[in-house]
């Protein structure tokens, strides 16, 4: 099987990041699991994986902390074979009402955060002419929809960066790939901090549909699986010796949407999306718009 790899994962305290850290450790790889608050989150993660998962404090919005963490990892392990840019936040709310601050924050974490870590890791990969950078995008990196404009903007941007970076790092044999999971039952969809202020404070002109969307998406997440398959797919991508494709959708919903979107014109796609009324994204939103209108 694959030689043991040294893998740095951001956002490893929970969700995809934690599951992937454990899957890689189970397969015999060395994992530098970075998170903002290791004192709180690391003990649960590394239980049973001591010596294979190394927790590390890292906030993707803090360049000096990233630089220190990467230097420490290179000192300790000699190299980083793969970087998994997983840290990310979500944001729900109509584009009209997203504040500058909210938009800056999600872009700072989801886009600039990934670029900062890439910037810190790439020199050592170029020096070795070897490495993999796996960016955890989302189905939201392929399609837009109501009340998720900020999140989609961040993931579309991450896809663009992935594509550009792939050309740029190819001369050093460094591979860059975006993965696009669909709706997965993780902590991200169950926190209560991800709505924009106007929605949180109940004063949004899009209140009803946005709340319905959040509720519908959480209900959909509850019907769906946890992160085990995403974690296993990410571990595969770390291990695969052959050239990787640019994009890998993960899960039945993401695979279906990437196929359908590829086959439809913009007009057909819009007609299809707006015809949906089932619980989840975006059916819950459009159903409430139809029933109640907007405020």
């Amino acid at each position: 099987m694959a030689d043991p790899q040294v893998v740095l994962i951001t956002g490893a305290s929970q969700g995809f990041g934690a599951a992937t850290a454990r899957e890689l450790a189970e397969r015999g790889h060395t994992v530098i699991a970075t998170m903002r608050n290791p004192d709180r989150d690391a003990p649960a993660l590394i239980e049973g994986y001591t010596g294979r998962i190394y927790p590390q404090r890292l906030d993707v919005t803090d360049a000096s902390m990233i630089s220190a963490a990467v230097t420490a990892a290179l000192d300790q392990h000699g190299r980083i074979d793969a970087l998994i840019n997983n840290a990310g936040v979500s944001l729900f709310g109509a584009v009209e009402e997203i504040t500058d601050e909210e938009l800056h924050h999600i872009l700072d974490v989801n886009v600039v955060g990934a670029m900062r870590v890439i910037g810190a890791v790439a020199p050592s990969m170029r020096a070795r002419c070897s490495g993999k950078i796996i960016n955890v995008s989302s189905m939201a990196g392929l399609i837009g929809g109501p009340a998720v404009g900020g999140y989609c903007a961040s993931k579309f941007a991450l896809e663009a960066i992935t594509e550009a970076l792939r050309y740029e790092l190819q001369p050093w044999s460094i591979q860059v790939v975006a993965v696009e999971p669909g709706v997965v039952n993780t902590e991200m969809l169950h926190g209560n901090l991800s709505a924009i202020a106007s929605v949180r404070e109940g004063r949004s002109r899009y209140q009803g549909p946005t709340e319905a969307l959040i509720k519908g998406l959480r209900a959909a997440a509850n019907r769906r699986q946890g992160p085990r398959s995403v974690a296993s797919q990410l571990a595969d991508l770390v291990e695969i010796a052959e050239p990787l494709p640019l994009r890998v959708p993960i899960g039945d919903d993401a695979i279906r949407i990437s196929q359908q979107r590829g086959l439809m014109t913009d007009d057909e796609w819009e007609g299809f999306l707006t015809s949906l009324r089932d619980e989840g994204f975006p059916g819950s939103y459009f159903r409430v718009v139809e029933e109640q209108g907007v405020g």
Partner: protein
Amino acid sequence: MASPQVVILTGSSSGFGAAAARELAVRGHHVIATMRDPDRSGAAVAQSMGDNLEVHRLDVRDRASIDAVVAMALGRHGRIDALVNNAGYLLLGAIEDLGEDELASQIDTNLIGGVRTAQAVLPAMRQRRRGKIINVSSVAGRMTGPAFGAYCASKWALEAMSETLRFEVSPWGIDVVIVEPGTQHTGAQFDNMVLARRLREGDSPYAGPCNALIRGHQGYAGQRPGPRTVGSMIADLVETVDPLPLRLPIGDEAALVLGMRARMSDEEFEEAMRTMDNDGFPGAYFKAVRSEAPPS
């Protein structure tokens, strides 16, 4: 999470079948893992899975063995929520070299085996107005290449049968889905691979390219991840409450190859295949063809 499901899998002695069976058992489902020879492989598959996983003998070529397991499962659990048709093998050889019995056997296991098993579980599923049939196809279910003709024919046919079955049984709320993994490091690419007799016996005008392809393909498969991701994704499909799509290409290779296939004309795809210079499928074959003297 998902309530415990009763799942029958065929071909569970190794590879995708074993990985899916164990993953489902870990997630708390009732798994009926079937195989031709439980004495040889059953213990390893069932190890530390407790009551969640039972191993039974089933040969998809033998309708009586299928009926017996289905009757047992219905008697013991009262229902079958999902069937995973996974049993299959890879027959390799140029079409001209295929013995009629070899081709018939490939189709009997990979295609008709899945049909027989589906037929055995459908009456109970129709009666309950629910159920899922998950057919394990392959990237080879939508593309083909030299020396893979028999295998691809069986998988293309399985895809056609699945698409038809989906129309037929959806009125009873039964879902049919095709999964299409790429090459993974499983026994299907090694010990379980069957070579056409003429190729095996050195009596093939295609021997050079075919042997180069086998070496290259096994070299490639040996570097690929094992079946865990496919196993986990099959478990996801068993658990998913929402309607499933017809086809699910799984993994990097499926995304790459089937993405190309969907976007290219036949001519473009053929040209892309012929000019590949990878050491596995199909580059190893075409490189050997180019390096050999023209066939006599």
